[in-house]
């Protein structure tokens, strides 16, 4: 295994994270043991962040011990890999409004102690602001709503200055008639007051018409 970033490994063909809970699979992924370490295969077709890494994301924002605010955690597929990356000292506040998905995430939280589940609409920041007093090190968002960018900006208040934000932009959710490049330009422009744009990565061929936008809070 080669180290691609701290915590993210590659065997030349696939990407992996080191398993925080050895022996346990989360969603049926492949487990590989090498030199006494156990790795979980990371599927870029299932995880947008993994797709971005595969497509040349320049930095891994999920470092050990970091505090993450993850909007749109769903059933926890990507969250489980973030959990591997931030380790037992890290904290992932997971926000999702689907009860069905949150049931699965709550079950995952029982096994992984760095997962903090919150059932809420990400637009209703008052629901969870009390837990984020100390600010978070990373704001990650993957929700397919028309006002994705507005939600991201609303939650930016929790992000520490100078820290990374990651926005998965689904252009089809915003407009079905405008071109993806136009939508990307328009939505990215909305971020420039609060953030500096560090990098934009297209997620093709893993996701169509999706971009991952890496930003830093000013």
């Amino acid at each position, binding site marked *: 295994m080669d180290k691609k970033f701290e915590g993210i490994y590659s065997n030349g063909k696939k990407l992996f994270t080191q398993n925080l809970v050895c022996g346990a699979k989360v969603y049926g992924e492949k487990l590989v043991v090498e030199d006494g370490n156990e790795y979980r295969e990371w599927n870029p077709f299932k995880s947008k962040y993994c797709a971005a890494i595969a497509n040349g994301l320049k930095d891994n924002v999920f470092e050990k011990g970091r505090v993450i605010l993850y909007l749109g955690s769903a059933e926890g597929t990507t969250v489980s890999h973030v959990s591997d990356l931030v380790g037992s000292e890290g*904290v992932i506040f997971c926000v999702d*409004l*689907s*009860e*069905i998905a*949150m*049931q699965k995430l*709550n079950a995952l*939280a*029982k096994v992984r*102690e760095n*997962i*903090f*589940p*919150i*059932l809420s609409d990400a637009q209703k920041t008052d629901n969870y602001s009390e*837990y984020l007093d100390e600010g978070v090190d990373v704001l990650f968002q993957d929700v*397919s*709503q*028309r006002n994705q960018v507005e939600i991201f900006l609303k939650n930016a208040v929790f992000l520490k200055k100078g820290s990374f934000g990651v926005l998965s932009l689904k252009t089809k*959710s915003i407009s079905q008639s405008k071109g993806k490049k136009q939508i990307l330009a328009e939505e990215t422009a909305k971020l420039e007051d609060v953030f500096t744009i560090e990098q934009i990565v297209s997620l093709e061929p893993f996701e169509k018409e999706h971009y991952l936008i890496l930003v830093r809070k000013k």
Partner: protein
Amino acid sequence: MDRKRLREKLMKKTQTEIAENLAGAEVHIIKAVKLISDLDAVSNLLKENVIDWEKRNPGEGAIKMLDQLKQNQISIETEKQELTNFIEKEMDKELPVFASVAGAVLGAKILAQAGSKKRLAFLPASTVQLLGAEKALFNHLKKQGQCPKHGHLFNHPLIQKLPKQKRGKAARILAGKLAIAAKMDYFGSTTDIDLLGDAEKKIANL
């Protein structure tokens, strides 16, 4: 609050909220819309009684009873209106997308027929199309009579206005959108799609 306690508190809170939300708040909508149907039946019975009794030259004592009957009938109408208001509010909370396409009361009737929000979400569009026409449907399946083309949907404004020949196709189009709407409401999606507008356009092109 230290992390461990915060985490346990959050897990417990999430668990409770999930249980509450999934406990079927829509059961109240179903009760309310069924009650409206029952009240309708009662109201009609009272009206008929009043009309019939009045024809038979009631004396002083009987007129008092008639007045009371009329009062009751009016309060039932008021109650029906309040139930309708309640249904509109609750449908907007529980099934906002579905209500925006079907209308609150009609949507509630379809929901009641399906039994629950979850059952409604998992129904194929063809079933949604025929909810309310069970008598005709099973009659047809027993080899008697034509297959019904619409159930409760028949009363939807988009379908009512159409000539007979177009109603079946319109019902199918609308049912398709309703099936999507039910799934959006159950799984909590708030993607901005104009399902009613799409249906209107397609129906206009029939």
